[in-house]
């Protein structure tokens, strides 16, 4: 199955291991991700914070590019995914917004392509049974707290692929890889997102709370699907806190026995190797 692939700016920098692991895991599952030619920034949180037209126009521009390619669009980054889905939702359901987007981005919206998060593709298109069949080194005994962050499943009317208050898709996927997802209450609690540079002290408080909740729930590690979450949880944690934070695609790569997986994990600020050695998941 062929998809257009929108990595987004973070996956070229602070989220580089998410990009590498997503591409590798897609290959292992027979999904062909063709990078969207000429993709540009989705506008991120800055566009909708200060200029409504830019938020719609920048996202619509990328939807226009995807439309030209004629393939459904796969977006690993939760933040980009939300921005693109939101613009798509507005164009699909509101004629006035559609006209505004068409004027801003200079195109004609057909509504023929769909936008998916990579998690959604893995969970709903490939399916957990198929994922489980690809597992060579099950993550047996590894207790994980699945951290969805706030954007992946919200707002629900824009992308209702999982429950907005208590999502389960990452938990089901982790279980298919042989890991043990723990129940906890902080699945969708905000990590502070883009406040990381402007108000780091606020993000530090939020991150400390999330990490200690994961620990109290008995988790050995956290699993995310968002480069902003992963970075905040590593960069803004209390100095003594050493619980690793993985992208779900990295855990898939490890469980599939992909040789390049250790290369991604070396990019983490919090060294996950001692934990993985304890579970004999790396050499």
């Amino acid at each position, binding site marked *: 199955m062929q998809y257009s692939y929108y990595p987004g*700016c*973070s996956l*070229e*920098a*602070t*989220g*580089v291991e998410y990009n590498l692991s997503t591409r590798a895991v897609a290959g292992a599952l027979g999904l062909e991700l063709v990078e969207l030619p*000429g*993709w*540009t*920034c989705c*506008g*991120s*949180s*800055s*566009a*909708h*914070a*200060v*200029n*409504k*037209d*830019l938020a719609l*126009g*920048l996202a619509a*521009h990328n939807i226009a590019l995807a439309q030209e390619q004629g393939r459904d669009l796969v977006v690993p980054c939760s933040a980009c995914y939300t921005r693109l889905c939101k613009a798509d939702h507005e164009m699909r359901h509101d004629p006035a917004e559609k006209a505004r987007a068409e*004027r*801003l*981005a*200079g195109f004609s919206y057909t509504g023929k392509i769909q936008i998916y998060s990579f998690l959604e593709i893995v969970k709903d298109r490939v399916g957990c049974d198929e994922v489980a069949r690809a597992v060579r080194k099950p993550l047996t005994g590894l207790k994980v707290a699945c951290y969805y962050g*706030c*954007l992946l499943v*919200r*707002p*629900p009317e824009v992308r209702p692929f999982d429950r*907005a*208050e208590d999502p389960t898709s990452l938990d089901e996927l982790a279980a298919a890889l042989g890991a043990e997802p723990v129940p906890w209450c902080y699945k*969708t*609690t*905000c990590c*502070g*997102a*883009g*406040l990381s*540079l*402007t*108000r*780091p*002290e*606020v993000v530090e*408080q*939020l991150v400390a*709370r999330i990490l200690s909740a994961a620990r109290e729930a008995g988790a050995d590690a956290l699993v995310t699907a968002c480069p902003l979450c992963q970075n905040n949880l590593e*960069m803004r944690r209390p100095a003594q806190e050493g619980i690793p934070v993985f992208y779900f695609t990295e855990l898939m790569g490890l469980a599939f026995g992909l040789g390049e997986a250790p290369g991604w994990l*070396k*990019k*983490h*600020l919090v060294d996950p190797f001692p934990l993985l050695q304890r579970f004999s998941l790396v050499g």
Partner: protein
Amino acid sequence: MATATLHLPAGAVTVDAAFREEVARLSGQPLELCFQCQKCASGCYPTQEGDYTPNEIMRLIQYGARDAVLRSRTIWLCTSCETCGLRCPNGIRIAEVMDTLKQMAAARGIAPAGETGPLFHNLFLSEIRAAGRVHETMLMLKYKLKTGNLFADMKLGWQLFRRGKLPLVPRLKKDPAVRRIFERASGQE
């Protein structure tokens, strides 16, 4: 219309009905439905550091307290995580309201003392305008230079750089189409 003055713990505010209508129109949200159940506030972690809770912001908008709202620190602490709107029993998308307030404050150049949110957003957008994509390394440097806080995250920056997470030469996408979107968005075309 006669103006009234309300004396709130935060100070005196002048009632301005036009503000209430403007926020309702721009955000498209039924602001009048807020009955102060405080569900939004109870799930809102970031704005605990702010001057008002989200329901207080809603109340101040109903009063028409233009200045108090547009100069509030709370609006810049909202991360648009959408928890408030998800839980609101009256279906008010409070994140949309917060966005509208930020847009109004930014357009008027209003920000509380020490708030660097608008500066960060403007730097972010000028990166997109110039290069099509956001070069995170450059954005962080520019922000640090502008705020004069160059050394706060230096160690962290070095750790990221060493792991190849802050590339010096990014794959940018200078695109006239993006520049046109900026021109149309600012009403130049």
